[in-house]
């Protein structure tokens, strides 16, 4: 058989970026030969053609600002790589003459968005729809660039102290349609008294903003939220795609929609000043006065300060035990040291704002109550732990999580363990749920809806800045497909950068998981890791290290053997039902695992992207497939990669959910640059393949250094100047 490649590499640029990246061509004319006889599947349509296409402005570093920005986190050339991927897709569509199909696909998505934008009684309720989501789904080719920029800037902000944290909040506000927010200025804190003054001010501002957020609601609506939020959205449920009581869920999201969400967000912004290491340092030396006693506290209390906004309690440097829910009227706890124990810590009608700051020691946070450990159900809560190896153990709505509120947990140092059940670890419905861990080798353990999960009106973020971390999500609740006509085994997951709506209730929000470095392990079950479901958007990004993404958890939630056969469905850059999912990995030798409908996969008017910017990687799953009017993409730059299975880049020619040709069809891409790669489907390196239908692409190209090695290839020379 004749190998099918042409114009590899593109003409060498003498520009400043050519040494960095062989594909920093600007207006190179690239001739592509599509060799159908290389295709491994009999169902693949043979296409033999030599076409010349202008790749256009591919240079990713033309924008010096973006180059400068990109220096700080992850792969500096990631923006350009994503742009390259987008252009490769666009040119592929052009090459095959299916631009019109893709245009129909794109306009069909827009039409579906229009048709479901307001409540019409269908399962797509239109409630809680976010403008950003709407815009991204209407522009699925440009969406990855925005997703890359969003995740990169978000992580950079997390690294940038209190101003950065304020920027995180500003970004979240924008994504949640809360409006353009200007970051306030922060006063420098040079003394413990000033630090306390900042805390008082933050508490007051948060109280005022929270009150304003409820002002549009009647008392009965507030009571409805208080009574029903947690049972309806959490405890009654054992599957993730909808609620046990859907009509109640609809009623609740309608009430949440009435809340003054801008004011709720202002409550979060009021707390940004507390995320200031300098302030925290000053608090450690607060002198206090004569020891006093406070109900619910054992150990030394050096100060109890009553303010109009609530009472502030300061614990001493020895061990304290705080039973937070018995400390009535106490809105702020500051502990200066010792290995402390904190029980519970929920917000309530009488204490809607709670701030806990622990400055030192190996601490234990224990609770079985929902809405604890920097989490809130109809309230505002922030937990900051500065030092020590801490253990956070809870059940539902915990560890930077919220239901109609704000939940923030920031842990600055130590090897920490976070254990929860449902709606935990950077999870949000109707507000903000943020968990930031700045350092240490940490362990995250959840069963469902967690680790950077955004439900209706929610922005959920988990960012672990450094360390070798282990994320586990799933292993407890049987998956919802188990009773289908074609059942598949396994557990529910809905973790690790998932934005998901609830069917017949409301559209999804924004879920983000970011990891800054270290060799990390991600275990997950169904519908997890960089995915969107039901009009939501999910983002997962790991900026460094050799990471393992293990589709299907290895053990059950409680640690014993799984009762379900190892099987994982939807993961690693997936979109399912009018949704978008993005997975980026900047560096390292990584593995990506799912069983079916995974690894750059899209299903039903959806989009899934998986982009790996470097390293020798290994993929196992469906791999770059689109189905039921979907666009699924894997893009891998550099490295010797292995693609297991045989489904790479397929796009099924048939669709049963939507009408053809109106919906445009399916689109699947596997695009690999550089390295010596192995494809389970039998494709060769430096090839360009049609997969299943004209919408299916497997494109393997060399990068510049590879191209130099293969420059003697006649076809390359011949095409270079054409």
């Amino acid at each position, binding site marked *: 058989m004749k190998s099918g490649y042409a114009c590899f590499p593109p003409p060498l640029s003498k520009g400043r970026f050519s040494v960095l990246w062989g594909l920093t061509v600007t207006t190179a004319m690239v001739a592509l030969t599509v060799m159908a006889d290389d295709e491994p599947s009999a169902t693949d349509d043979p296409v033999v053609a030599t076409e010349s296409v202008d790749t256009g402005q591919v240079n990713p570093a033309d924008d010096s600002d973006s180059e400068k920005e990109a220096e700080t986190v992850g792969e500096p050339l990631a923006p350009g790589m994503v742009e390259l991927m987008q252009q490769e897709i666009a040119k592929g569509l052009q090459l095959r003459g299916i631009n019109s199909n893709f245009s129909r696909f794109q306009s069909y998505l827009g039409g579906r968005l229009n048709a479901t934008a307001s409540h019409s009684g269908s399962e797509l309720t239109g409630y809680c729809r976010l403008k950003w989501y709407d815009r991204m789904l209407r522009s699925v080719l440009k969406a990855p660039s925005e997703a890359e920029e969003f995740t990169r800037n978000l992580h950079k902000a997390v690294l940038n102290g209190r101003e950065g944290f304020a920027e995180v909040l500003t970004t979240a506000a924008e994504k949640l349609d809360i409006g353009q927010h200007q970051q306030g200025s922060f006063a420098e804190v040079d003394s413990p008294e000033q630090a306390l003054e900042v805390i008082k001010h933050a508490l007051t501002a948060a109280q*005022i903003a929270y009150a304003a957020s409820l002002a549009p609601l009647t008392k009965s*609506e507030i009571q409805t939220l208080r009574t029903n939020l947690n049972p309806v959205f959490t405890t009654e449920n054992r599957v993730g795609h909808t609620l046990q009581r859907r009509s109640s869920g609809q009623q609740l999201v309608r009430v949440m929609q009435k809340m003054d969400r801008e004011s709720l967000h202002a409550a979060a912004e009021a707390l940004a000043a507390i995320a200031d290491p300098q302030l925290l340092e000053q608090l450690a030396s607060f002198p206090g006065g004569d020891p006093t006693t406070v109900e619910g506290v054992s150990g030394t209390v050096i100060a109890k300060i009553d303010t109009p906004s609530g009472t502030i309690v300061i614990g001493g440097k020895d061990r304290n035990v705080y039973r937070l829910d018995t400390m009535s009227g106490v809105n702020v706890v500051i502990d200066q040291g010792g290995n402390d124990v904190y029980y519970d810590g929920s917000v309530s009608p009488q204490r809607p704002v709670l701030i806990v700051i622990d400055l030192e020691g190996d601490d234990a946070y224990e609770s079985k109550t929902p809405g604890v450990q920097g989490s809130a159900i109809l309230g505002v809560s922030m937990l900051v732990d500065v030092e020590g190896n801490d253990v956070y153990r809870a059940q539902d709505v915990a560890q930077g999580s919220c239901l109609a509120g704000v939940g923030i947990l920031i842990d600055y140092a130590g090897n920490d363990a976070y254990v929860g059940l449902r709606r935990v670890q950077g999870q949000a419905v109707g507000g903000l749920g943020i968990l930031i861990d700045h350092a240490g080798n940490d362990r995250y353990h959840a069963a469902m809806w967690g680790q950077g999960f955004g439900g209706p009106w929610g922005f959920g973020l988990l960012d672990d800045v450094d360390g070798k971390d282990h994320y586990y999500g799933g292993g407890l609740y049987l998956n919802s497909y188990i009773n289908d006509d074609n059942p598949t085994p396994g557990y529910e997951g809905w973790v690790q950068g998932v934005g998901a709506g609830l069917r017949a209730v409301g559209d999804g929000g924004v879920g983000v998981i970011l990891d800054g470095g270290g060799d990390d392990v991600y275990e997950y079950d169904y519908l997890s890791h960089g995915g969107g479901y039901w009009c939501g958007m999910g983002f997962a990004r790991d900026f460094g290290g050799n990471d393992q993404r293990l589709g299907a958890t290895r053990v059950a939630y409680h640690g014993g053997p799984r009762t379900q056969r190892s099987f994982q469905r939807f993961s690693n850059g997936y979109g399912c039902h009018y949704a978008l999912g993005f997975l980026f990995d900047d560096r390292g030798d990584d593995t990506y695992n799912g069983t079916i409908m995974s690894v750059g996969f899209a299903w039903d008017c959806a989009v899934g992207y998986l982009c790996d910017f470097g390293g020798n990687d290994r993929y196992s799953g469906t791999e770059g497939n689109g189905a039921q009017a979907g666009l699924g993409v894997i893009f891998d730059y550099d490295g010797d990669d292995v693609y297991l299975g045989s489904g790479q880049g397929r796009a099924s020619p048939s669709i049963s959910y939507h009408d053809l040709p109106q919906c445009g069809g399916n689109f699947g891409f596997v695009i690999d640059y550089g390295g010596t790669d192995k494809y389970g489907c039998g494709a060769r390196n430096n090839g360009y393949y049609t997969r299943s239908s004209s919408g299916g692409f497997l494109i393997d190209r060399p990068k510049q250094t590879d191209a130099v090695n293969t420059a003697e290839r006649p076809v390359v020379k011949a095409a270079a100047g054409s």
Partner: protein
Amino acid sequence: MTGHVLGVYFLGHKEGTVMIRILQTLSICLLLAVLVSAADSIAPSAEETKRVEEPAAPLKGPILLALNPSYSNQAPEPAGDAEDAPEEQTDGAPATEPPDAAAPQPKRTLSPAMVALRDRVRRTLEAYRRQMLSTRDNTATELMHACLAFGCNTEVYQNGSSGKKANGITTLCWNVSCAGYEPLVISDGRVAARIGYGVQERPSQLLAVLALARVNSDYPMRVGEDVRNVADLVEHEKLGCRSNADLSLTLTGLAYYVDDDATWTNSLGEEWSVERIVQQELAGELRNVVAGETDRVMGLGYLLSRRATREQPIEGQFLRAKTFIDQYHDYVLKHQNSDGSWGIRRVSGGSTTYDSAQQLHATGRVLEWLAVSLPEDRLEDAGVVRAVAYLDNLLANGRYRHDLNSYSTQQIGSVMHALHALAVYDERVFEPSDPEPAETPADRQAARP
């Protein structure tokens, strides 16, 4: 004490007519002095911290006493007894004084159209005054809104609509739990209004309400067994002044309770004065005034009105404020909708639509500010009168006429600010045309059921 009450009385009247009214109502003042002297003997002082009985309803001034004679410091019980129900005293008519043969003639005459508007406004005010909030269902914030509208005449139900009635301001100052939230706390040794959901939802909100209701600074406030007074709250608010903080409501409160030239030290050791607050407020961002965001201009406008009443000089920061407020008066009147409302109106398909709740909020707030801060000679400008009529119509015919206490805090706030606007307008424009009250002790006694 007597002197203070006299002062309150004077300040309760329109500027420029003080001396005439002194002469006309001297007998009432003397009567008040007697009553207040009696009240002194029962009113708790700061030293009497063990005393926990509820105080009498606060004294606003003779006008309110005339409107509802049941509110005098003679009353040994809270003004909430069922038998004190104002509707039983007034037969549903707007609160007016029975004409007294000895009363002087009105100083001015209203046009028939203004008389009609006056009657409508008073009917509306009375109708809403009867829609009492309750301490079981309504938060302290909502009570503060109600007290803004009806001042010392505010009545609330204790424990639901079947419960006894109590005076609204007494309820707040006596730290009665409202919807489960107690509004007061002792902080840094002084009485303070709690901040947060269910209580004071803006800093200094209670202080501003007490000021606008013209509650005496020695009116008692209780937290548990600890009885203080409004002056203690004022001191707390002075200590809490901060740079870059929103002090608009603080300014409203301190404009009433603090001598404008006074200086004080806040809890950080910084020197503050009303003038410094004015300077800070002038430096702050001002936005959406025509949409109802009027707190900042309200504070400044009220202060200037107070200074004018006190015949204090307008110079320095005060002059800057006056120039600013004058300009803003023109600005908002220029941006008034043709029907008299303020707020965003959307033109779509040739027709104009608007959100009545938003319109009520915006128009109520803007008119409230204008009614408080406009000079007398502008109060009957066509635009202002149009706004009064618009607002009255919205309130009289809108959805809030029934079951007000079940609405949201925001809606209750909008209604109450709108009612406050009408009440201030009534006081400044219509009341001077009313026959002067000439009460006798017998009249007042007779007014009691």
